[in-house]
């Protein structure tokens, strides 16, 4: 049973809020709710989009009444378990830090008052957890950045962030699957294939995955990805 706050988003979607902060517990509740809605939805929902602390569901307003959509969601929340998924997959991703691959790395280390090697090790130390995919196809929002490494986003976003860039903004960490505009601080780059629409599993990562960054001495070393555990 999950406590939820259901808000209409126009006449064709609902936002279901499960928390007012971003942490692993709230993120686990989000994925549990998203799974429960998928089971209970019975085809009523055309899309189920989890985020940090909420789930958005879309429906066809001529086919599904808002009250029925709300009742389905409420029923799903009652049946959702708060248990974390025990089957956790760890994904090791190689990253080439600094220089042309991470144009903000040196200044970020300087701003934090850390030597570059220490900054890199501190960044790679934690297990990051994929909260959800959003912003761009296959873009993982990662939790776990140590608060001591938090940096504000750029005042003016860059028009072109290269594909594979590993970036941070405040408490958030993410990887750009393709070139795009972006305002996050860029620390390094990976050639890991984060998204390919032609694959049967287009996104490399899924919510709940643990990500471990490993420093690489050359960009070529970052092509392959190592999976440990999990059903996949």
């Amino acid at each position, binding site marked *: 049973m999950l406590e939820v706050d259901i808000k209409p988003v*126009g006449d064709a979607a609902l936002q279901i809020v499960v928390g007012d902060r971003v942490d692993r517990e709230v993120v686990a509740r989000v994925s549990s709710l998203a799974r429960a809605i998928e089971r209970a939805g019975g085809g009523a929902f055309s899309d189920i989009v989890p985020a*940090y602390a909420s789930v958005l569901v879309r429906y066809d307003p001529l086919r599904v009444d808002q009250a029925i959509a709300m009742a389905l969601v409420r029923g799903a929340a009652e049946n959702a378990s708060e248990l974390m998924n025990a089957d956790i997959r760890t994904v090791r991703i190689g990253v080439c830090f600094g220089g042309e691959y991470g144009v903000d790395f040196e200044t970020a280390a300087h701003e934090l008052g850390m030597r570059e090697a220490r900054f890199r090790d501190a960044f790679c130390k934690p297990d990051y957890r994929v909260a959800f995919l959003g912003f761009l196809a296959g873009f993982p929002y990662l939790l776990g950045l140590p608060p001591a490494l938090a940096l504000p986003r750029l005042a003016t976003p860059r028009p072109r962030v290269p594909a594979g860039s590993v970036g941070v903004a405040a408490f958030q960490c993410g990887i750009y699957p393709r070139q795009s505009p972006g305002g996050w601080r860029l620390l390094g780059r990976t050639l890991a294939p984060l998204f390919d629409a032609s694959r049967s599993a287009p996104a490399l990562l899924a919510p709940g995955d643990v990500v471990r960054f490993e420093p690489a001495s050359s960009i070529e070393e970052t092509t392959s990805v190592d999976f440990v555990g999990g059903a996949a």
Partner: protein
Amino acid sequence: MSEPRRLVVRDAGLLASVQDLGRLGVGALGVSPSGAADWFSARAANRLVGNGDGCALIETTMNGATFEAIDPMTIAVTGADAPLWIGGKRKHSWRSLRVEAGDRIAIGPPASGLRSYLAVGGGVEVPEVLGSAATDVGGGFGGRRLATGDSLCVGAGSSERFSECEFEPGAILALRPPLRLRAVAGPDASRLGSAVVDELFAHAFRGSTRSSRQGLRLEGLAITGGESDSISAGVCAGCVQLPGDGSPIVLLAEHQTTGGYPVALCVITADIPLAAQVRPGDEVRFERIDRTGARDALTDAASRLRAVRAVATGATHDPDAARLGRGFAEGASS
């Protein structure tokens, strides 16, 4: 079946792409639904040529586009109020038309509106990616972003059973500015406060040149009260985001799946087609509507879509009428 019929792009204009009603069920991967920005015009064009609502068709932008039919086919053009020429002769849009081999189909710059839809009987054939023929222009996958010289295959259609159809004049979109987008309060309205919401409803905005298939950007008034650091949440087409600079963004078909800007209003499903047709400089106003009103407006749009009739010349019975009149939910919802 013999060789597929072909349609060649002679001038793709500003942006022409293959679209359908969008890619559903993959939002959790961060994949945008994409699809036709103006769902009403896309469905209407498909119905005129006897296709299902979700058939792949071509969306053009702003200054029009030109195509050449290599083989005979049935076509219809809907959307923006744009002049249409077939083989050099001026023709009506919002009507099904027979084109002969070698005919040029030229969509001119619209007098009002922004996007035109060209449907062909049998549909445009592109491989489906993640269950849809829609082009994700920003993502660079799915469908096809069209370039001058491209050749497209047309599906086997019912060209032999062609009967000319048109929409009743009252059924088509009225696109003369000022455009009124009916909206309800968004999920973050109470956090932003009623003063901000009232201000959004009170003012006249203008379409910005920075708009895209992702979102209609509006300018003309900087509204204070927008914050940029809320917790990212799922969004959908119609969401009116209020970024820190106070210039609202109405999300369109190719929106990002999640966003961090507060959602002050939501344009109702029935008026998303109008939002998709706003040109840079057009005056835009938000008009308050309640939930019942939103529902009535969508029911009305669905019934206008059914208002396809045979053109009077001798057509007493249209064998496709029942099919054309099928429900809104036949394809994916917008």
